[in-house]
């Protein structure tokens, strides 16, 4: 479903977005830069992936990026958000994703990372984020994402993990952060992603879940993350990528969604916001660009809906 033939007012300002992403690391005199230090490594993943999808894979300096990622690693094998920050699964996944995109997974000790991640799996099959014990289906997906990129899914009990995911499914077909928790598009993305990585999508009722997902689209074209909530570019991605994994992306109006995402751009300063007219950030910039790529927007690199990474990287590493 290629989204082409869009008019001037519906164009993607690639050059502006590239410049915006490249400028992020030069804002060290801003308070916001430092108040988001706890996200830095994920920020690099968001920026780098967006650049790749916009066909600027060399938009960040490769050697410096790899060196920075490695500077976030702990002896344990896990990665923190920035040097001086504790290891956590969220940043470990970002680190592995960046290294995979840069084709630099061989520069780290894969086994050490894999065994750190494997150590987070609990008896129930779920994963904690770190040694402090918080559990969430986001962490479970992160573990499976990173381990599959490392070629080390065998380090964990995949069946147990999937049993846990299935226990998180609700009456509406959706998934929550834990058994009994309300369905939420972000958690659905992680659970469907985990099922996809494990090759277990056949275990769920795709029609039921996809019906809930397609009802997320609002008249303005954007998608919300739960019933009766506002539309948002990041939720749009989680919903549409889940629909794509379920082979039902055509259950929503792609052209309307593409127009909504394009309206969220800052045409002058570059970057994409959660909603039209709001402040942009690199997180929504990635999910906006990835959303357009999934919709077949002209001139973009193809995105993989399971990993939110360039499709060709996944094909090469995971082989499917």
């Amino acid at each position, binding site marked *: 479903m290629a989204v082409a033939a869009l008019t001037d007012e519906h164009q993607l300002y690639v050059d502006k977005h590239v410049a915006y992403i490249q400028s992020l690391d030069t804002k060290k005199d801003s308070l916001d830069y430092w108040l*988001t230090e*706890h996200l830095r490594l994920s920020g690099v993943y968001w920026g780098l992936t967006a650049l790749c999808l916009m066909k600027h894979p060399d938009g960040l300096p490769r050697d410096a990026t790899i060196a920075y990622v490695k500077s976030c690693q702990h002896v344990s094998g896990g990665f923190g958000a920035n040097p001086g920050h504790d290891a956590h699964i969220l940043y470990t996944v970002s680190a592995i994703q960046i290294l995979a995109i840069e084709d630099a997974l061989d520069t780290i000790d894969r086994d050490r990372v894999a065994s750190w991640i494997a150590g987070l799996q609990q008896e129930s099959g779920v994963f904690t984020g770190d040694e402090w014990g918080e559990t969430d289906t986001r962490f479970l997906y992160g573990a499976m994402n990173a381990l599959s990129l490392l070629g080390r899914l065998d380090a964990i009990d995949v069946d147990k993990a999937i049993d846990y995911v299935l226990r998180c499914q609700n009456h*509406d077909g959706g998934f929550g952060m834990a058994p009994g928790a309300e369905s939420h598009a972000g958690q659905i993305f992680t659970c469907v992603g985990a099922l996809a990585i494990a090759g277990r999508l056949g275990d769920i009722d795709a029609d039921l879940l996809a019906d809930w997902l397609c009802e997320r689209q609002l008249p303005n074209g954007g998608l919300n993350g739960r019933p009766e909530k506002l539309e948002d570019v990041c939720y749009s991605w989680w919903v549409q990528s889940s629909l794509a994994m379920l082979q039902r992306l055509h259950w929503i109006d792609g052209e309307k969604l593409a127009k909504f995402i394009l309206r969220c751009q800052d045409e002058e300063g570059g970057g994409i916001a959660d909603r039209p007219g709001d402040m942009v950030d690199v997180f929504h910039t990635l999910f906006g660009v990835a959303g357009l790529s999934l919709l077949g927007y002209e001139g973009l690199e193809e995105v993989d809906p399971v990993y939110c990474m360039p499709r060709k990287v996944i094909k090469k590493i995971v082989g499917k």
Partner: protein
Amino acid sequence: MASHGISRTEYAASRSEAVQEKERNKLTEYLALVEQTQQKRSAGDYSLSALELTSKVLKLNPEFYTMWNYRRQILLRTRLLPFTAPEPPKDAPAAPEGQEDPAAVAGSLRAAYESRLALLLKEELEFLIPLLMSFPKCYWIWNHRLWALQQCSMLLSPEKGTKFWQGELQLVGMMLTRDMRNFHGWMYRRIVVSHIENPVGGEYSSLAKDELEYTRRMVRGVGGMTNYSAWHQRSVLIPRLLEENGKDDQERMDCLEDELQLLMSAIETDPDDQSLWFYYRWLVSARDKSSIAPKMPHLVRIAMVTDQVEWLKELLEAHPDCKYILKALVAYAQLLQALRKEPLNEGESEDDVEEVDEPAENQQILGWLETLERMDPMRKGRYRDQGKVIRANSEINNTIFLRG
């Protein structure tokens, strides 16, 4: 780096020179504070003055998860040490007349320890309240609060520990009043309830009934019907409560009937509220073991779904533009077709299953789907897929019929 709902124009307008100057000062202060704290952390300083520094950093930036970790490491080494009874001296002679017996001394030391610790834990929980009010969607704060409460369970007597958990119900009740869809709040509520239900060293006592009553008040409150979170919670609690109370099949069917009545009247009030329709779908079509009445006799189920289809047809006459009614009609007309083809329960008679003209019924369903495509064009791909399945199935049936 990930912001929500901040307007670009309002932000630009707020960037006066004075504001920027203030921000520069704040930045200098913040960086100095973080550096000082990080230095102590790398030096392995677990003192109360370091704890104070983490308080300052976290008030400015509660997303700084490493600071929460550091804070917990300090607390575990200072304020939250476990109780250790004083070792009685070896070969101690029996307490002479007029002196306290060592067991009594240890007991009162333990009591003093618990009172002091309860105060310290309360202080920790109070530190978090203003942070939760300002940042109700920050995972790390909720997370730290749960950790502190777990310490209550581990370090205090069961009664004292449970009191702390009970106090949390009030807090989370207030948070959910402020934002009745905050999913952190709902998640937290489920965890708190489960701790109260399963006290350390105590017996399980269910709160499912009270919690169900809580959701009932929620959905009946102003704007409550659209509260998808509360309906979701009902779908979790009702089956649990039925199970715990050992309800038989008839009682389960009565329960389903009551819940259906509640939903039907809510839908009649506002048929465009999609929250209601998802929950209604579960009531009508779920048959798995976590549904309300999984063992409903087959003919009774057919009668129930038939009644719902009739009710929906009437509702459609009053609200011809409501797509949810049409979607439900498509779903339950198909459910009925499937039910009629399934084997009956023992003692039920084939004669009681109404004969229907399925091809005609299918034409009606296809008609509804065409209307839906026009009414709800954003999701036309979904309706077309449904139509394709019906056409393919009836083609297969025709082929079998012709061959037969």
